């Protein structure tokens, strides 16, 4: 059993993994190139939304994650802005209505008692919604959290439990001996351990390539607008049907032609009152720029659904890179051809919801314990074989 583990990457997945390892008494070193949450976990939304997860392994992992979040503030002794305010998926067209009815049916079979409300009921539940809205889903179990706070709290709790954290330290190579990964090299310094967990989000393939392992994680950019502070009015997660369609769509379809940047509305409000208005889904490599066309399209979709937003100021915009995989599921588990090497990455747009659950599973796997759930759907081998 491993006694000594290196975790590479200080996003939500890496910090969570480090925390659960340290909590089990394992000697952990977390190595991050820049700062905690400097990557995607610091450039994203705040939803812990189960409604949007595909029924099956993703929903199971989501349920596992949601349960962890319920008590996480107490466990980490930190304010995470966690709030269980429910969530809605807004339905604007008959086409969306058909698709979402079907999704809701499957979610119900999987155990989520999601309601389907009329436009009238939707407007009652969420003031300000446009008159054209046909309806909405509603599930009281959806929650939200401040992702930066989660990452920092995980890192601090890990540290309190004895983990060493090295920031500003970019890992450039995986060290191997006799067919086994035995450590990493960062800034010219070599560090050895019984196991190495790579939790680098979109950057994961860059490091694994150095040791001959290919995996199909690619960046899928999302742009988000930040509004001026406004009085609280969004108390739950809001997604539009168009957002769900963009999330689950396959390449090259009709939707892609109509909406090349994959714009759909996601709306949340921060503790300080700013709205986070998302978002897009774009395959443009590691480019983090915001673009006027997409910013405008996001603004338009927000105003269409919330006409009053037309009078509101957008104060800035930012972009993050979702670690996308072709089947929409992350990779969580060992790299078979390299004993000692593990991967936890590829959560696309669900890493905040799934990060703590992933960390707990990964911690178990890295020290040779049972995962605690079925991890076969997340095996790297599904892409390599």
């Amino acid at each position, binding site marked *: 059993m491993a006694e000594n583990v290196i975790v590479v990457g200080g996003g939500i997945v890496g910090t969570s993994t480090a925390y659960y390892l340290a909590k089990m008494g394992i000697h952990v070193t977390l190595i991050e190139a820049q700062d905690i949450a400097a990557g995607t976990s610091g450039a994203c939304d705040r939803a812990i939304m189960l409604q949007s997860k595909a029924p099956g392994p993703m929903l199971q992992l989501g349920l596992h994650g949601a349960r962890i979040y319920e008590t996480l503030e107490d466990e980490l002794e930190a304010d995470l802005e966690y709030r269980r305010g429910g969530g809605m998926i807004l339905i604007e067209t008959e086409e969306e209505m058909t698709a979402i009815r079907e999704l809701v049916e499957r979610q119900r079979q999987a155990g989520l008692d999601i309601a389907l409300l009329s436009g009238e009921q939707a407007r009652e539940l969420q003031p300000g919604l446009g008159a054209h809205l046909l309806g909405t889903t509603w599930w009281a179990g959806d929650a939200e959290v401040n992702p930066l706070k989660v990452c920092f709290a995980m890192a601090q709790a890990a540290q309190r439990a004895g983990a060493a954290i090295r920031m500003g330290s970019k890992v450039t190579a995986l060290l191997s001996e006799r067919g086994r990964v035995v450590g990493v090299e960062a800034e010219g310094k070599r560090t050895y351990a019984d196991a190495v967990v790579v939790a680098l989000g979109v950057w994961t393939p860059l490091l694994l390539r150095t040791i001959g392992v290919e995996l199909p994680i690619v960046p899928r950019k999302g742009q988000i607008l930040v509004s001026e502070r406004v009085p609280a009015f969004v108390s739950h997660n809001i997604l539009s049907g168009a957002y769900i369609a963009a999330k689950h769509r396959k390449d090259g379809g009709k939707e892609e032609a109509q909406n090349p940047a994959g714009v759909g509305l996601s709306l949340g409000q921060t503790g300080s009152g700013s709205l986070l208005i998302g978002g897009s889904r774009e395959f443009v490599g590691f480019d983090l*720029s915001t*673009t*006027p066309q997409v*910013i*405008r399209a996001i603004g338009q979709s927000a105003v269409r659904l919330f006409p009053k937003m037309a009078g509101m100021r957008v104060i800035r915009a930012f972009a993050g890179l979702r670690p996308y995989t072709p089947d929409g599921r992350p990779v969580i588990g060992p790299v078979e051809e390299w004993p000692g090497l593990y991967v936890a990455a590829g959560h696309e747009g669900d890493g905040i919801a799934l990060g703590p659950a992933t960390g707990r599973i990964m911690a178990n796997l890295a020290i040779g314990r049972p995962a605690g759930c079925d991890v076969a759907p997340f095996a790297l081998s599904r892409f390599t074989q």
Partner: protein
Amino acid sequence: MNDACDVAVVGAGPAGLVAAIEAARAGLSVTVVDEFPWPGGRLLGQLYTDPRSHGRWDGRKISRQLAQEAGELGVRILGGATVWAVGRDLSLELSGVPVGTLRPQALLLATGAAERALPVPGWTKPGVVCVGAAQTFTNVHHVAIGRRVLVAGIDPLALSVAMEMHHAGVDVAGVVLPPVSTTSGALASPERAVARLADVADLAPNGLLRAAARLAAGKLSPLAVSALRFDLVRVGGVSIGFRTALVAVEGDGRVESATLRSVAPDGTLVGPERRIEVDAVCISAGLYPLTDLAEIAGCPMVEVEELGGLVPLHGPGLETPLERLFVAGNLTGIEGAKVAIAQGRQAGCSIARSLGRATLVSPEDAARAVSDARTSSPFRFQPRIAAGRAAMAELWQQAIARGDQSA
């Protein structure tokens, strides 16, 4: 609005307006965008006697003339429109009075400069303003920022504005050093303030500045040390405290008083605090190039302290490494209006040539006019500006050698 033009110019300051005129002369269609309703930029607030020509430098009048000349050449000036993004294709996104997209062949960014902030306890109270606000309200809007005003900052701009307010009838309670802080650094040291003033002695465009500068530079020698024997100097009815700094601003909901302290020649605070009654405080902490749009456009940026900080990398003809993107005026380094005008002309010519048009002015003449303007300028904001320009030329050469330039 969604339309095309040959050239778009962001910023209707002297650099932007003159560039627009030059490009229009070469037969190009030009649109100038500025978020202020009237053209002129920072030129609008400038009002002083030019010691070279002994004539009056009336920025409002010059702005009007430039705008009129531009109008006669068919330049379209869109006022009240903020450019909030620049696309990779140089398209401009506008918000404000006209909303929409401009799609030019070539783009000039002439967004000017902004003022550095210099926090001091109480600096957010209504009545504490930047020196540029005092200049604009006094000279452009003809409204007093207060009845009794303290000016914190002993530099050419602050002294000019103090004098302009005094002439307009404001009771200027004094001009003192800016607050001592990690950001003000040497600004707040008497030695440095005196040295800066000495630098502009013979060119100073108004009585107060000239007198203060002469005092600083004058017969006194060695300059810095002996000049510091005096603390309070009274010039033309305004007192300057070379050994006094602002340390706090007080008041319930608005400025009611300011607290001052003496400063040793090296800049450390000494002695007891004293309080004076004022209803406005104006702080001068220096200018820096307003680079936001250049950065959004994707122009490589370089840090050149002598130019005022971060500036877009640019070549001798004010071209940038991005094809058909040009920069001019204070965006390229902090200097006075005459330099901005000469740079505008140069940029206008470069743009015309980049679009295959002939110009009356040769590139050499345009460049020479810029350095002439520099030597005759009544305002020198950055003491080592020439070194800064040379450093940029060097950086540009290095970039070309690396093959960065796409043009």
